[in-house]
């Protein structure tokens, strides 16, 4: 990539933060969704284990 691409015609300080911020939002969405699912799964496993202990 040449310097012209990175300077974005003088608008680099506006264009690149927008791209970076949006990519960060995409990454956060993946991370937060996976975390929500992992936590829910752990809670469900615990609930099932407790139910099994109660039955025993």
């Amino acid at each position, binding site marked *: *990539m040449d310097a012209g*691409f990175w300077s*974005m*015609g*003088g*608008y680099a300080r*506006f*264009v690149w*933060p*927008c*791209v970076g*911020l*949006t990519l960060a*939002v*995409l990454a*956060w*969405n*993946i991370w*937060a*969704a*996976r975390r*929500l*699912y*992992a*936590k*829910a*799964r752990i*809670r*469900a*496993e615990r*609930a*099932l284990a407790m*139910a099994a202990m109660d039955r025993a």
Partner: protein
Amino acid sequence: MWTWFYKLASPPYVYRVAAAFAPWLLGLAAIAIGYGLIDGLVFAPPDYQQGDAFRIIYVHAPSAWMSLSAYTVMAVAGAIALIWRIKVGHAVAAASAPIGASFTLAALATGSLWGRPMWGTYWAWDPRLTSELILLFLYVGVMALRPAFEDAGRGDRAAALLAIVGLVNVPIVHYSVQWWNSLHQGATVAKFGRPEMDPSMLWPLLSMLLGFTMFYAGVLCIRLRGEILNRERSAAWVREAIAS
């Protein structure tokens, strides 16, 4: 058609379908967003008026599109849950809210950064900007209201009602540039009859819009599985689902 609709009311069915769809949606989203970003940032020509600053459209417009779409999904899912008493609807609404809120924040921030070189200010109390900010407040309100009740069912119903009432803001955001004088430019992509963008600029934008939509659907599937597990963890089918 109704059989399919009834199937969507079944938490185990939706849990399985979401697991099957999520990786495909996210994989296709990565391809579409990757192509759109490279074509938009590298190969599309600069705008004759805005220069290279116009390239912000490739992240701003898809974020704004998703902020409105995710809210509509949330309100419609809430309405379905209230009318037909379908619990999965509340799970869809709960899953959609944080995704939509994050895209609304991205749309506001990237719009603000685009506004500085074009309008000379980061923020103006313009109809489009103000209604988009209200949209963010609505998202925050819906997310805060759900856990504010001890009874989860009441929290779901209250959040669904607020989402439905707030739906009136979606057309206001969309048509604000036509209804009032606005700094914000009018629609470009919607005018397929006489597109205002050259195809070399339009195709990467359409690819980004498609990519963001698939990304939203993919993340919604992952979140939905978590929401369903949280709500159904004492159900018998969860044991088999977790074991598999």
